[in-house]
């Protein structure tokens, strides 16, 4: 995937020089190993800072809503799906965008690699081929990237961008994976077990709302957690409030979530918040045959109806 770096820089310089766009949104190399920082290049010189590798997990679509200038943006499969949702929901106009499609082989899960190192700190990481070599004080270790992908990437079914103006590489082969294994496990639990499972899951939550802020589908003018008249949810880490928050957050992105994993990546305490959203993704797919952002002019499922929709709730 690093081969994209050169192509992104080339495209960025060209687009900026030709004044086709005002900015190019991509990543620059992070100061931390296995991290990159979202970055917008405004000049051809800045374009040389753009990079691409397996640490570009944050969904760049998050930086689009309500912008007015012309923007080139690097988009993975998931990013592109969120962009099409945003276009449908009038957050950004298609004409404003020049999409550099990045077929994706998944993003590295820094935490998974860290877990293998018995608390030792990574000073440096290098990605080459399908491997990541990490090193620190007195150690060096190499990992197969495919075994250390973000969980959402490991079960991703749409690695290729669904819209683009220019592709950065050949489409990659889509995975044939069972993507709802953990959801099915939870479904099989008793109500009591489910409650305990989710209570334990969100127990560490500090209610910072990083999951919401990182989400490319969260752009309500006033989030429900910020409403005061009436106040739907309390602001402490009281268990009922935390449950309410996670439930409603997930419900608000039902059918609009591309499972990009930004929420999980952003969570400072490592909560697997995707367990809430993935179930809704599954239901929407089963009930309405809809997958977020896959078809350009198909509105999200809670925005439309069919007269013969199933009624499993009766």
């Amino acid at each position, binding site marked *: 995937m690093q081969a994209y770096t050169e192509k992104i820089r080339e495209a960025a310089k060209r687009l900026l020089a030709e004044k086709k766009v005002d900015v190019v949104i991509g990543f620059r190399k992070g100061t931390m190993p296995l991290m990159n920082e979202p970055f917008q290049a405004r000049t051809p010189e800045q374009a040389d800072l753009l990079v691409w590798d397996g640490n570009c997990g944050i969904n760049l679509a998050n930086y689009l809503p309500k912008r007015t200038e012309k923007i080139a943006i690097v988009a993975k499969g998931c990013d592109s799906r969120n962009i099409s949702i945003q276009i449908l929901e009038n957050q950004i106009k298609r004409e404003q965008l020049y999409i550099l499609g990045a077929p994706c082989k998944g993003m590295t899960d820094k935490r998974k690699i860290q877990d293998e190192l018995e608390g030792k700190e990574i000073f440096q990481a290098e990605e080459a081929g399908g491997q990541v070599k990490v090193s620190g004080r007195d150690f060096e270790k190499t990992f197969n990237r495919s075994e250390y992908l973000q969980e959402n990437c490991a079960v991703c079914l749409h690695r290729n961008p669904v819209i683009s103006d220019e592709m950065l590489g050949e489409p990659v082969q889509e995975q044939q994976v069972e993507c709802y294994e953990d959801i099915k496990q939870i479904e099989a639990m008793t*109500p009591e077990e*489910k409650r305990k499972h989710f209570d334990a899951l969100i127990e560490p939550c500090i209610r910072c709302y990083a999951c919401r802020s990182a989400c490319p589908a969260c752009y309500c003018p006033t989030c429900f957690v910020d409403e005061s008249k009436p106040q739907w949810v309390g602001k402490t880490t*009281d268990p009922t409030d935390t*449950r309410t928050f996670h439930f409603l957050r997930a*419900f608000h992105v039902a059918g609009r979530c591309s499972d990009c994993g930004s929420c999980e990546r952003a969570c400072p305490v490592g909560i697997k918040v995707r367990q809430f959203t993935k179930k809704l993704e599954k*239901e929407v797919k089963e009930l309405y045959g809809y997958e977020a952002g896959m078809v350009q002019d198909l509105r999200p499922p809670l925005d439309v*109806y069919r007269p013969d929709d199933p009624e499993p*709730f009766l």
Partner: protein
Amino acid sequence: MSEWEPKVITFLCNWCSYGAADLAGVSRFQYPANIRIIRLPCTGRMNPKFILAALRHGADGVWVSGCHPGDCHYIEGNFYARRKFALLKTQLEYTGLIEPGRVHFSWISSAEATIFADKARKVVEAIKALGPAQHFIKKQAEVA
């Protein structure tokens, strides 16, 4: 808890199910007094937050009822509601916030007073069988 009677917050659409409740009343049909009716213009107005709010404030169950699909006074309000309800109910049960049987949905037209009374009995019975709601009630915050 022998004297415990459940509180069931009931959201009824103004044009159909509320009419049915009204008709059930004037027809002197008996139905349990556990339901507390909140009138909505349309089930399309129904926001999942309302259901969560009811449960957080101590409701033992929630029942939402509106016009039959196709009969909406606003043409399509309940078609939208239907998708919300489907996802909401599954998700509520999936996350274990409530046990199956605490949240009910139905379509009842303004002429169906007997069905209304019947459904009210069934809803209250189902909720009684589950006992008082416990897990999703907002209590005094556990803080320092």
